[in-house]
């Protein structure tokens, strides 16, 4: 069974940013995970490569929550 989008993003965060998996919850803002503007752009590339989606027109800010990010990726994957 393939991983869910949330699991994929969680794995990327843990492996590439050293994020504590316990801290990755849907309601947590990305800035709370210490994801600054550079990290968000890096994450965007990683998600695009991993999930084969185009997030070019997705606005990402560190105020967004993990849940909002997952939802945005879902929407683009379904489009």
């Amino acid at each position, binding site marked *: 069974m393939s991983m869910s989008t949330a699991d994929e993003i969680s794995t990327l965060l843990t492996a*590439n*940013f*050293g994020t504590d998996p316990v801290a990755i919850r849907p309601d947590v803002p990305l800035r709370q995970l*210490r994801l600054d503007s*550079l990290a968000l*752009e*890096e994450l965007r*590339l990683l998600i695009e490569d991993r999930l084969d989606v185009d997030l070019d027109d997705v606005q990402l800010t560190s105020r967004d929550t993990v849940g909002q990010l997952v939802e945005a990726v879902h929407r683009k994957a379904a489009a």
Partner: protein
Amino acid sequence: MTAPYRLPPFAAAVTGIGLVTSAGIGADATWRALNDPAAAPCVPHRDELRGLPCDFMYSVTGLDTRAVLGVAAHRLMDRFSHLAVIAAREAVADAGLDPAVWDSGRVAVVIGSAHGGLPFYDEQHTALTERGARRVSPKLAPLAVVNGAASSVATDLGARGPSQAVSTACSSGTVAIGTAHQMLRTGACDIVVAGGAESVCSRLLIASACRLKAVSTRIDDPQAACRPFDTHRDGFVVGEGAGLLVMERPEHARARGAAVRAHVAGYGSSSDAYSAVAPDPDGLGIERALRTALADAGAGPADIGHVNAHGTSTVSNDLIEAVMLRRVLGEHPLVTSTKAMTGHTLGAAGGIETALTVLALQHQLVPPTVNLDAPDPDIPVDVVSKEARPAVFDAAVKTSLGFGGHNAALVLTR
């Protein structure tokens, strides 16, 4: 009989050293390897360089930089910065300093690098041409710059005084230490972490160096390729690594009861104003730098017992440098080129080799120039070969020359 050497009015105290080289991880490991007749240079063929006339380089192996630094910090640095931070941590610990309690605004960082994150540029240029602009990493612009090592070390240590990069090609590390010496002398800071860092396994750079005929093409025997002062030398071999010193104002080191490994007593620099590549054929530029450093240190030729030479293993550098050393210092100093074990680490070379000169002073031991099997009869200085040679000396010299005619020299004393 000459008068005993006395330190000049200002001499910076060297209280810590940190080394990451292909010869060893850490100052002790590197020093042991340099003086171990059974140790062999670590010069593997590299996949990145496959097909080039020179496909090998001195490489730092057995070091998991990601594990040492942690994932979060590791991703925000290029490899040359990884090596710098690891060397800086060792140097600061060696000096007995605790960044949690030091006066951080009085701690400076000066790190030399010739090429910064060049391999990252290589990689991302490939991404750009093969996959388009949107696949280029946002990290390239902030991390691959030459100042990356200085900013990474300052961030890692919490050093909030002046921080800067020095880029004078292959003399960068030596100029960084000279710059640190001047900063301490003017009172701009109390402590400086200074030296050099480089990691350039770059297909682009090595291809160019091959075209320039500057690097050895002894592809069947890479371990023997770097042979400074040898009759059969045919070019340098690129290495990677970092070498950093903790330098302090002497009264600062004294006040905290620090053990002083050595002193940086004098510094000189000069420009050949001659060529983008070749050194002044008469060595007049490096001679000016060396004479300035000697005058700065209040030292005469008789005081200098050892020279850690630039000694790149190119035909012209080694001859020009050796003739100059004989002219300025005479025939008595024991000369070595440790590049035969560490490779030519370009912007890091001055940092690594100054740290090794500090160790030579402390141990009263001159490490050998390995691979020196057939000394060039035109080299008019006493080059230590094969085995380390014990000696008694109070002062030593480090010389560096860089593409573009950037020369630098340091006088180090006990």
